[in-house]
């Protein structure tokens, strides 16, 4: 079973890297970009076979390591 975790900065936390990407896109002539937020995608191969148990396990991983919940939020997809 595979899991995909998306980690993004929480709304309201400034993202200087995203802003730099937005600026660079503008330099390349992509003038229609109002905002860029940059995050991470983490893919996990799991031995679990139970979907609900796998999701609970991955959420625990997010809380303890994969995300810093002071500044980041996350979503978990089980595939």
């Amino acid at each position, binding site marked *: 079973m595979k899991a995909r975790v998306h980690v993004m900065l929480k709304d*309201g*936390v*400034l993202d*200087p*890297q995203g802003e*730099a990407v937005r600026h660079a896109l503008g330099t390349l002539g992509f003038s229609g970009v109002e905002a860029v937020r940059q995050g991470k995608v983490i893919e996990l191969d799991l031995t679990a076979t139970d979907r609900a148990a796998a999701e609970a396990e991955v959420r625990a991983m997010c809380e*303890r*390591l*994969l995300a*810093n919940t*002071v*500044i980041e939020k996350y979503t978990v997809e089980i595939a």
Partner: protein
Amino acid sequence: MKAAVITFPGSNCDRDLADGFAAAGFEVARVWHKDTALPAGTDVVGIPGGFSFGDYLRCGAIAARSPIAAAVVAHAGRGGYVLGICNGFQVLTEMGLLPGALMRNAGLKFVCRTVGLSVATADSAYTAGWAKGAAIAVPIAHHDGNYTADAALVARLEAEDRVAFRYLDNPNGSAGDIAGVLSDNRRVLGMMPHPERCVSADQGGTDGSVLFRSLAGAFVAA
């Protein structure tokens, strides 16, 4: 009066930090991240600067879950002193021993220079050797030193007099110009500037030595 300095793969200020403690009279032990206990009788744990685990995932994130981490958290829980500098500050926030988080510098550049700080409180073992409001010069060298805290947290830290140092000219976008914060029992200090890089005239400045001597004084007095 014993200090323990922890080394992670990628730490690079551990020797300077050990020297800083030793110059102030501490007996210093070096501890590897895979150790699971601190040396008996450890009074102060030092978490050094550097790039632990290559800054993978987030700065300090992997170090904060290394085998020695539980012993450091337990030491702090018993009221022990913990000093985290630069990457060590990032590790302390990732361990949950200090509030807030350190993000990429607002200017996106690695900043390496000596900066002016004001000592925001003299009410801690680390800062007792200065007068509140003293202006000092301490080197910084970081890419991710932008202290991030919401307005409520900044207000709480200020109300509880837990801001240890402030930048005179904010180099990285930190909320409230905060360069260092104390835990609620005032025994855990995290700071981005490097006091261990200015403990002798050979290093170009000696303001950092006041921090180590102040801390030593807390044990002499006790």
